[in-house]
């Protein structure tokens, strides 16, 4: 039985864990960022995770937002991709043609950080429509924004989303941004110069593409979550790494920092 979203925060040995699943997801995402990387950041959890990383282990992370803010150092969580905090604390602010053509397109960005509404086993993502018809969708989502070309050009891509059978589906309703297409060779065929997804980080675990088949493989499971629960929340027959590990639990310092950050948000949640 799939765990419902509401009880994901009470999984550790039958007791309420000292963190919630959003916090675990955010902290796991932050840990993937290495100091000195140039990071193209989307709004929401990607932003929280990047700001957290810069405030902790990666002070020289270069944060770039599609609004044109280059090497910004926000101390509060932005609500939008162009909040005053991002502009005021940036080294420089440039136009969107410069961000997309001069920074993103040539493959200058080390890591791109994306969210998604749906993802498939090849880490292709949908942020456009839910439902089979593009013209008559069940739900109209915001669309591509910067995601398509971020997915195409960054040296690596990290995708963050909650894992349920609604989000982890065997066939996504619309390919908005390409992960590994239909498998090996698909990125090259489409002229995508970046390396593609490196990690998919969910509230339950961490998935990575198999180096050969490019299919997502579960490589890490968050503390308190069972493999069975993860399988039940995945819309395909999920592959699991032979050396599956358990994600290190959030440290108290990580938790403190992420909570302090989230408290600065206009929405008061990450």
């Amino acid at each position, binding site marked *: 039985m799939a765990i419902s979203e509401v009880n994901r925060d009470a999984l550790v040995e039958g007791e309420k864990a000292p963190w919630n699943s959003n916090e675990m997801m955010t902290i796991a995402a932050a840990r993937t960022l290495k100091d000195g990387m140039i990071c193209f950041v989307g*709004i*929401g959890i990607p932003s929280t995770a990047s700001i957290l990383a810069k405030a902790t282990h990666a002070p020289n992370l270069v944060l770039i937002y*599609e*609004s*044109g*803010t280059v090497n910004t150092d926000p101390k509060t969580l*932005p*609500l*939008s*991709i*162009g*909040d*005053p905090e*991002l*502009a*005021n604390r940036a080294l*420089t*602010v*440039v*136009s*969107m*043609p410069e961000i*997309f*053509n001069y920074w*993103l*397109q040539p493959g200058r960005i080390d890591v791109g950080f994306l969210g998604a509404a749906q993802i498939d086993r090849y880490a292709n993502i949908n942020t*456009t429509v839910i439902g089979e018809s*593009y013209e*008559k*969708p069940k739900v*109209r*989502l*915001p*669309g*591509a*924004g*910067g*995601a*398509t*070309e971020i997915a*195409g*050009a960054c040296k690596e891509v990290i995708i963050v989303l909650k894992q349920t059978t609604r989000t982890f589906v065997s066939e996504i309703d*619309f*390919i*908005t*941004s*390409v992960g590994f*297409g239909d498998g090996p060779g*698909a*990125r090259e*065929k*489409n*002229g*995508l*110069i970046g390396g593609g997804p490196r990690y998919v980080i969910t509230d339950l675990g961490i998935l990575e593409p198999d180096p050969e088949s490019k299919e997502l493989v579960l490589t890490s499971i968050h503390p308190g979550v069972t493999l069975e629960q993860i399988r039940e929340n995945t819309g395909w027959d999920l592959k699991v790494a032979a050396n599956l590990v358990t994600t290190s639990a959030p440290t108290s310092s990580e938790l403190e920092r992420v909570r302090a950050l989230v408290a600065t948000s*206009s*929405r008061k949640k990450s």
Partner: protein
Amino acid sequence: MSKFVTLESAISAHLHDGDTVALEGFTHLIPFAAGQEIIRQRKKDLTAIRLTPDLLYDQLIGAGCVKKLVFSWGGNPGVGSLHRFRDAYQNAWPRPLEIEEHTHAGMTNRYLAGASGMPFAVLRGYFGTDLVENTTNIATIDSPFTDEKILAVAAINPDVTIVHAQQADRNGNVMAWGIIGSSREAVFAAKKVIVTVEEIVDSFEPRFNSVIYPEALITSISLAPRGAWPSYASGYYDRDNDAYIAWDEISKERESFTRWLDDEVYGKRVQDLTPVGMGR
């Protein structure tokens, strides 16, 4: 004739039913005052172009001004959906809405092509996505120097581009600073350019990340203090994130939206702020 006119005159004189219009500004400097004046003047059948429709176009769409939306990201940033956009697209209320959808990189390069007087611009993008089959104004060309396929996107040249900026000087030059998005390209691409500004100054001071639009590019300038609210104007006021969050409630139902329209748009009149001695 002076370019300094009231916002009411500017919209009335330069924006016509059926026009293609781009109101630009990315998160920052979004021309809300101009958008609401378009609603008040009940302009219709507009093809409305903008990377991020945002609350601005949710309002225009809900008020029935827009026939077609050309865009690349249609949400309320950090909050959720644009309910009026969804209601128009999915339920044709208050009128049917056509859409043409791109990516940010595609849209910014479409403006860039328009600004450059070129029929198209080239980029790496779209390939492998379902956008390729579901949108128009894109094409594939073979690179003449390398063995690669490259995406071409058609130029956008709006009949009218509308932007908000911090300052105009008395000669009709305009200065904006901070996040500029694709505004410069949208201005250069347009046949006519309507500008609203926070303030009119004697001369400009140096600023980081400033852009100056020379008078020669501009059709009209109107004074509209707080004209970007609830977005922001760097150096004048900050983004009103609470207003963005509140919009979710206002726009969710047709009734609450209609009440907002009556109270906040139709029930108000744009203030005549034409500076003394400038035009009229």
